[in-house]
């Protein structure tokens, strides 16, 4: 019994001394930090995606409070959060339109054949560097999942070897845009409906050999889209995303079958959600 009391008081005493020391240290040696930084961090989504251009949410919070960085740089923030930030920091900012990513390619395993069997690091940049990629189409999605792996919200799925973004899951950070070695992914306003799912700059006959759903450069869509919303850039039709438009028959009228009127081309695959491609 005596030993127990001695031990308990000894350990307890040490603990008490340490606690007092820590409290004093926190008081007198503590680093002064603006209270608001922590409050801002709590408001931010915490995805640390880097879309704002800063090194994570804490860094952006500090920049906002101390350096006066714009408060509307965080894409994943909703209007509510922006309002809360505005009130907290006493600054006005316009909400930016919600943007989501879209992969402008429709060449999956069925429509876009491979021209070689790639053996090596299962990363799109790596595959692209070895001999220009293993697909016949020199511009299309290689399907090794680098974008899916870098997406902080798991919004990118590889459906039949083609990267596809689920717009409802996309937080708009832009990490995938920076990752794709063929620059196939674009950030577009979430309300846009018409998309040309092809980025091939090759001429029509070459595209036909490379993919059954590629843009053959016929420019029929440019006439169907009002107000010059689709333009030809060389042999490729490119949508002008600054304009909001729609046309009920534009997808059917496209001879290349590369235009869609919604984000996810292969909706039947959504039912069987596969894991994004793992390691090499």
């Amino acid at each position, binding site marked *: 019994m005596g030993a127990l009391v001695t031990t308990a008081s000894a350990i307890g005493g040490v603990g008490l001394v340490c606690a007092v020391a820590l409290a004093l240290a926190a008081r007198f040696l503590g680093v002064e930090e603006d209270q608001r930084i922590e409050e801002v961090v709590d408001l931010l989504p915490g995805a640390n995606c880097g879309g704002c251009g800063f090194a994570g949410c804490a860094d952006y919070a500090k920049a906002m409070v101390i350096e006066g960085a714009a408060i509307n740089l965080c894409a994943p923030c909703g209007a509510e959060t922006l309002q809360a930030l505005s009130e907290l920091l006493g600054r006005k900012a316009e909400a930016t339109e919600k943007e989501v990513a879209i992969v402008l390619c429709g060449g999956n395993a069925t429509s876009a054949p491979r021209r*070689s*069997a*790639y*053996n*090596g690091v299962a990363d799109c940049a790596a595959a692209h560097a*070895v001999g220009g990629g293993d697909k016949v189409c020199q511009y299309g999605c290689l399907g090794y999942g680098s974008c899916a792996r870098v997406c902080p919200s798991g919004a990118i799925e590889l459906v039949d070897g083609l990267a596809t973004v689920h717009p409802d899951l996309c937080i708009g950070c832009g990490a995938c845009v920076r990752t794709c070695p063929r620059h196939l992914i674009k950030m577009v306003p979430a309300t846009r409906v018409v998309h040309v799912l092809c980025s091939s700059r090759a001429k029509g006959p070459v595209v036909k050999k490379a993919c059954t759903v590629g843009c053959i450069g016929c420019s029929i869509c440019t006439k169907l889209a009002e107000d010059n919303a689709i333009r030809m850039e060389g042999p490729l039709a490119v949508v002008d995303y600054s304009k909001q438009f729609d046309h009920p028959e534009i997808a059917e009228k496209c001879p290349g079958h590369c235009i869609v009127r919604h984000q996810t081309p292969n909706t039947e695959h959504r039912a069987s959600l596969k894991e994004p491609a793992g390691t090499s």
Partner: protein
Amino acid sequence: MTDTEEQLYIVSSSPHAHSGDSVRRIMLDVIIALLPACAAAVFFFRIDAARLIATCVAACVATEWLCRKAMGRDSGITDLSAVVTGILLALNLPPSLPTWMAVVGSIVAIAIAKQLFGGIGYNPFNPALVGRAALLISFTGPMTTWSNPATLTAATTAATPLRLLRRYGVYDFTPTMATNAFLGNIGGSLGEASVLALLIGAAWLLWRRWISWHIPVFYVGTVALFALALWLIDPQQNMPPHFHVLTGGLMLGALFMATDMVTSPVTKPGMAIFGVGCGILTMVIRRWGGYPEGTSFAILIMNAFTPLINRATRPRVFGKKRSA
């Protein structure tokens, strides 16, 4: 297009040629190298040796398979590294150890020391030695109960040379005892017994160039020199150097445990430093430490230094000065 069949050419980065070696090949060579030691173990310790070796190998392979399945990874047992761990663990055990304890040791070696870190290549410590250390600390009694080999006629429980030294102090290590230690006619763990069998196996690995001479030579050399120095300073309190070289787990440790690729340095100067460090620690533990045998802990401690040693012994890049 390619040739008439619809077969695509394989495209990869260079080089497109390979020496033909594989991890499995390495493990097979190590298993072959351990066969003489296993044969010696069975010869001297009969059914106990067979029982323990079989148990450890089976338990290690099964544990690895189960762990990989639970982690959702490929099974990995075909590279035979679990078999090697099993054999090495068994060779580190006393012949009278109960079977269930050997199973526990195997599970610790594979599940904790290897798979929890990510599997082969990621483990910082030698799995077999971690298994042995865990058993030694958990079941000290059975792990330090030794028997004489079937070839000796004395009582079944006996003391190994190192235990004799620890218990009774310095004694006369006769040439007969030395010969026995070399050939295997001596008490100890399964693998400690026959230095000769271990040397034959190590020669095979050296010839196949899977281990280099640096670690064994620097390790055993340091032990010999350290022991020599102690013995010269005070022959009454210390055993002669050849005693330390021939007894205990030193030869097994220096030839097969310290040379484990994953946990030892990758550069030749680094291997030398590693060997010297193991040698010093082994002798310190034997002479002044709490355990009669220091090899296992010495190697485990040096394993922790391997990344640092690798960093410190980076080779001088062609075309650059030393400091760069």
